[in-house]
């Protein structure tokens, strides 16, 4: 449905002014270097899975601004003044469909984008992992103590992440777009695992913790996974 609607947008934009479209492959990846949290835990994230959908690419609207916004509002019922609908740029590119990604370089599909200068990316969280949104495995190490962890994270289905940095000029030939998960924010000291005291969570001192929905630790992780600082789209 959304693809066909996006086609309407493209057609409308093309009608008003030539707006060439490119088809760019999208892959996902993540840096592998360990990161250090605010509590001094060094995190080595060994495995990630994230359920997401409807990857959108946004442009600082000029040529397509008003028309694009209105068309999308018409076809998607965009409610700018409601939570989850922030007017953070005009959507002029998208990769439809739902995906479960491990951020290990695997392809997500082929996105369609109108040629132009891009500024941001949005996507929606899904519950495609047996009802969960994310699964994270890794180790946390501090002062010689290492704790393994396995976390299942639930985020409201359809909750939108808005404004992941995507600073690129898109033109022919289309580049490969890389959606990255960043455990360490590139713009602040924040990490995905801040405020998590792994030692306190390891109550039976067996060196392993499970983080599950309903727990404070889960809620901390759930909150940080929804911050756009922890994602970016780059080109290769």
């Amino acid at each position, binding site marked *: 449905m959304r693809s066909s609607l996006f086609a309407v947008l493209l057609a409308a934009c093309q009608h008003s002014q030539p707006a060439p479209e490119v088809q760019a492959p999208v892959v996902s990846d993540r840096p592998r270097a360990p990161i250090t949290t605010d509590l001094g835990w060094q995190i080595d994230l060994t495995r990630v899975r994230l359920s997401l959908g409807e990857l959108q690419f946004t442009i600082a609207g000029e040529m397509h601004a008003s028309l694009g*916004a209105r068309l999308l*509002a018409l076809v998607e019922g*965009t*409610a*700018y*003044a*409601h*939570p*989850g609908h*922030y*007017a953070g740029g005009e959507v002029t590119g998208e990769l439809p469909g739902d995906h479960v990604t491990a951020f290990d370089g695997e392809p997500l599909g082929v996105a369609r984008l109108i040629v132009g200068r891009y500024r941001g990316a949005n996507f929606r969280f899904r519950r495609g992992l047996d009802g969960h949104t994310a699964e994270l495995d890794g180790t946390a190490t501090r002062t010689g103590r290492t704790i393994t962890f396995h976390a299942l994270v639930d*985020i*409201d289905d*359809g*909750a*939108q*992440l*808005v*404004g992941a940095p995507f600073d690129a000029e898109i033109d022919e030939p289309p580049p490969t777009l890389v959606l990255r998960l960043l455990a360490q924010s590139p713009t602040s000291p924040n990490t995905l695992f801040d*405020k998590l005291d792994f030692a306190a969570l390891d109550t039976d001192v067996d060196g392993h913790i499970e983080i599950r*929905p*309903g727990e*404070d630790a*889960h*809620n*901390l992780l*759930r*909150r940080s996974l*929804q*911050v*756009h*600082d922890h994602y970016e789209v780059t080109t290769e």
Partner: protein
Amino acid sequence: MKEKTLALSLLLLAACGPRHGTLRITAYGEEFVEEGIPAEVFADGWSIHFTRFAASLADVSAGSHLAFAGPGTFDLVMPSAGAGQLVAEVGVPGGSYELAWRLVHLEVEGSAQKGSLSKTFHWAFPRATRFAGCAAAEPVDGNVATAQLTLHADHLFYDDLISEDPRVAFDLVAQADADDDGEVTEAELRALPLATQARYQVGSTGVDNLWDFIAWQVSTVGHIDGEGHCETVDRDQAKALSR
């Protein structure tokens, strides 16, 4: 001769277009403000009764026509039988209009009930949120058309900034009453961190306490003609002002 024909055609075209009229702009908080938000709306059984819902509006415009410079304060709890409070009437050329307006201050006072529990609140939000792109439903065509700036009070009690389906809830607000004196104050709301809450997700907004959460929601209350949508602009400025 050709010029005369062209001029006549233009005149006829003009005569066939929408006619000059009056745009009557009102502000309305719906039944939720005038009569209260019933328990059925809340996910956790609370209900709300407002005794004051004073919206200070400014720079209300319809297209390029400034209708009300303001600021002026409209207490939307005053019973209006659905008509809302009159903000301005302005003569405008015929056509359809998009409205823009600023909500420069919102003061809400009231009480919440749940069984034998009762909490009061009296909050003031010095917001500078601008709502734009509010497409009025009724066109002007020789008539007095009404455009209603609608404020959705239930948004103040939404429990999520980014969910597609936020709930209306008050439990956490009630829990913020740390001194248990029955009044939930700004200071108590500011002292309630959200980091470990399952609900009250904030996305990338940076909001980290319940006061800022509610203050952020103030920037979502603006609508047009009931459920019509506006674009919220200057939201970051509004957030900064709330601190």
